[in-house]
Every structure is written in structure tokens, then in C-alpha cells.
């Protein structure tokens, strides 16, 4: 019986403090009766091996004790879908805010690449903290709901006050993916893309095509565009050519009706390159003075302000494009997952 005492002592450690004595006394009475029955059947005492088997069959002390716990889960099945929904929304917004802080606020306030990298690396920690707090709040609510159902009837209330007529209208697959392009539309797109590219290529020779009458100001002013704009221009031309080639391939393959999602995402990623080229401009100089020796004293301060403003503008554009890309990627992955699930 010493083994029985040791077993019950082990079970006791995992039991709720308030009911330990009562549960152990009952468990002991039941187990002793069972042992007695078994021994009277055999006509002898149980051997050590038989006793071990008996206890093993009842289960590990921790498992046995866990069955007496009133609440078995942190967040129950009723609350879990709501928890998951809130968690997903919160994580998405925290991620967006962290990215805006890293891509826009940090470069403006601290202005170093290291600070931006540090801000990006802080994001996982902030996400984990957010998830932990949300889990904690839901776990507390679940605990209160289970323990005091009369005080917390909110879930039932929500269910009863729900109105089916407030459901959003049905989304049609075709509307979601956009209207298919006709052949004429696809051809027109190529023609306009070629015309646009021609217009872009003419700008360096005829700047008035872009600036209009403002070209006179550029000629007479003490300012000139920095060389980074030539790199930017090269990338814009390359992108234009790439898009025309892709559209021609779609037309030749007969796949002009819908542009593939991968193609759209690739274009968005490549479209980021010209913006990144500008952001990486040495010293963030986009406009310089034609005669620095003469004009530095008069226009130097204005020049710094203009360059900072241009850098800020492109930082914001970059953040928006990155967020849009992340959103598109997420949407694409989720649609691919849904299609895969539906196929099974």
C-alpha cells in the first residue's frame, strides 16, 4: 500500500488546492475497494508487478489530476473564432504601423540606415507582444465567462442581436477579378504603351514635353538635376520596354483576357527599383547648383530643403508601394490556398 500512498501523493500535487483532501480521500476509497475486489478474486495479495499494472492502467498522476480541473482550455471553441479574427486584424495593423514607422518616420527623425534596420528588426517583438496581450485578454474573458456565466452573457447577446440583412452583398467571381480585356483593348494598350515610351524617350531632347513652360525656369534658374535622375530614367525606360514585351507575349499566346497575378506582382516588385534608386541617391541630392562657387551662399539653404522634401516624398511613395505589394502578396497566397483547399 506504500505505492498507493506515493501515487496519491503525486496526484495531490496537481489538484486544485481547495479540493485536494476531498478528492484524494474519495480516490483512495475507490482504489482500495478495487484492490480488495481483485485480491479476493485471486485469493492473495497483488504482486508488485500487478500493482504497477493497476496504477499504470489508472494513468499518470498528472493526467488523472488534470481531469478534475474545471477549465481545460485557455480559449474555448465559442470564443476561438472571434479571438482569431481580432488577432489577425490586430497583427495586420501593427505590421502596417511598424512598416510606416520603419520606412517613413525613422528616416526622417534619425536619418541613418542602421536606425531603419533596427526599426524593422523590432517588428517581430512588437507583433509577439501584441499577440500575447490579445491572448491574455481573451483568456481572461474566457475564464470570467466560464466561471460567471450570469455576469458575462455577451456572446449569446451578440448572437441574438445579429441581423442577417446586414450581411454584405454577394461578391461575384468575375467582378472580383475584373472584367476580361477584349482583343481590341489589348492591342490598344500595346499601342499606347509604345507611344508613352516614345514620349518618355523624347523628354531628354525636348524637356518641354514634360515640364511645359517650366523649362524656361529650369534653364534660367541656378539649379540643375542631379545625375541620379539619368539612372532613374534608364529604369523607367527598361520597365516600359518590359511591359510592352509582356503584353506582346500575352497577345501572341492568346492570354490577353486576364493578366496573371504572378506577372502583376513581378511588375510591382520591379517597379520598386526606380524608387529605390532615387532613395539611395548619394547624399540624397536630387537637385544641385550649376555654379556652386557663386550661388552656394544665396541658394544653399533652399537647395537642402528641396532635396529633403524630394527624399521624403519618395520615402512615402516607397512605403505605400511596399504595403500594397505586401497586401497583394497576402491576397494572392490566401486565394491560392483557398483554391487548393477547394480542389481537395
Amino acid at each position: 500500500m506504500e505505492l498507493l500512498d506515493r501515487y496519491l501523493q503525486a496526484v495531490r500535487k496537481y489538484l486544485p488546492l481547495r479540493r485536494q483532501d476531498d478528492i484524494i480521500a474519495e480516490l483512495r476509497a475507490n482504489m482500495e475497494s478495487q484492490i480488495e475486489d481483485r485480491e479476493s478474486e485471486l485469493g492473495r495479495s497483488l504482486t508488485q508487478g500487478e500493482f504497477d499494472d493497476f496504477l499504470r492502467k489508472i494513468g499518470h498522476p498528472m493526467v488523472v489530476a488534470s481531469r478534475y480541473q474545471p477549465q481545460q482550455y485557455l480559449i474555448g471553441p465559442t470564443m476561438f473564432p472571434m479571438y482569431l479574427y481580432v488577432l489577425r486584424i490586430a497583427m495586420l495593423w501593427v505590421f502596417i504601423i511598424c512598416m510606416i514607422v520603419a520606412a517613413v518616420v525613422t528616416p526622417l527623425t534619425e536619418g541613418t540606415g542602421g536606425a531603419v534596420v533596427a526599426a524593422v528588426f523590432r517588428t517581430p517583438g512588437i507583433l509577439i507582444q501584441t499577440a500575447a496581450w490579445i491572448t491574455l485578454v481573451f483568456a481572461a474573458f474566457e475564464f470570467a465567462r466560464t466561471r460567471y456565466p450570469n455576469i458575462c452573457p455577451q456572446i449569446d447577446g451578440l448572437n441574438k442581436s445579429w441581423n442577417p440583412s446586414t450581411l454584405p452583398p454577394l461578391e461575384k467571381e468575375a467582378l472580383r477579378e475584373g472584367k476580361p480585356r477584349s482583343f481590341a483593348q489589348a492591342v490598344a494598350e500595346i499601342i499606347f504603351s509604345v507611344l508613352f515610351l516614345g514620349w518618355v524617350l523624347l523628354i531628354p531632347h525636348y524637356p518641354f514635353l514634360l515640364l511645359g513652360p517650366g523649362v524656361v525656369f529650369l534653364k534660367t534658374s541656378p539649379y540643375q538635376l542631379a545625375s541620379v535622375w539619368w539612372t532613374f530614367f534608364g529604369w523607367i525606360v527598361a520597365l516600359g520596354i518590359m511591359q510592352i514585351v509582356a503584353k506582346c507575349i500575352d497577345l501572341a499566346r492568346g492570354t490577353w483576357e486576364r493578366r496573371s497575378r504572378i506577372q502583376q506582382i513581378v511588375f510591382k516588385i520591379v517597379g520598386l527599383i526606380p524608387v529605390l534608386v532615387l532613395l539611395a541617391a548619394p547624399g540624397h541630392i536630387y537637385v544641385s547648383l550649376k555654379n556652386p562657387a557663386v550661388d552656394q551662399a544665396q541658394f544653399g539653404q533652399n537647395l537642402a530643403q528641396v532635396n529633403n522634401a524630394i527624399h521624403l516624398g519618395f520615402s512615402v511613395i516607397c512605403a505605400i508601394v511596399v504595403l500594397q505589394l505586401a497586401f497583394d502578396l497576402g491576397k494572392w497566397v490566401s486565394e491560392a490556398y483557398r483554391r487548393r483547399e477547394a480542389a481537395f
Partner: protein
Amino acid sequence: MTVAENTFENLRLELRRGCLTLAVLAQLRQEHYGYTLRKELAERGLEIDESTLYPLLRRLETQGLLASQWREEDKRNKRFYRLSPEGEQILARLLDEWNSINASVSRILEAETAPNSQAR
């Protein structure tokens, strides 16, 4: 354990859980302590683990469906359980529900087998 076996095991446990509660409540129309209740149920073909039955008794008592008292029997203190008045009402309603479900499932199964027997 394969995925199919695991699914079956989960569904089996889910199915058994409600039935065990009903069986325990029904058996406790007569007074029992944990071990004899388990023996009675086993004799009637319903095997139930100690680690499932004893906490279940506690839970049903907390819900007010069972009443218990410590009493000495065979020179040993034992906790005897019996259906409370509230438990009797709940048991009657649960039995109605059980019979209704049982009859419905039987009708569904008969409807499933009828066209096959007609075809033969």
C-alpha cells in the same frame, strides 16, 4: 495512428461523452459510490475508465445533478452519490432527447437500407 483512425477516435469519444453522462445519471437513480458504480456500468456493457468516471461524478455534483455524502461502509469511509431532484428532471429531459435522436437515426438508417432491399 493514421489520420483516419485519429478522426474516428475523436468522433467516437465525442459520441461516447454524452452517452456516458446519460448512463451515469440513469444508474445513479440508485445510490452508489465510485467503484461500485463503475462495476455496475461495466456489468451492463459500458466500460468506463476510473480517470473519466470519478471527475465526471464531481462535475455532475457541481452542476447540482447529483447529491453526495460520506458514509462508512465495510470499515471504510466512502462517498456515495445519488441523483438529486434537479438531476431527476434533467435526466427525464435528456432521456426524451436521447429517445428522439435514437428514433430519428433509426429512421434515417432504415430509409438508407430500404431502397437497397427493394432493389434486391
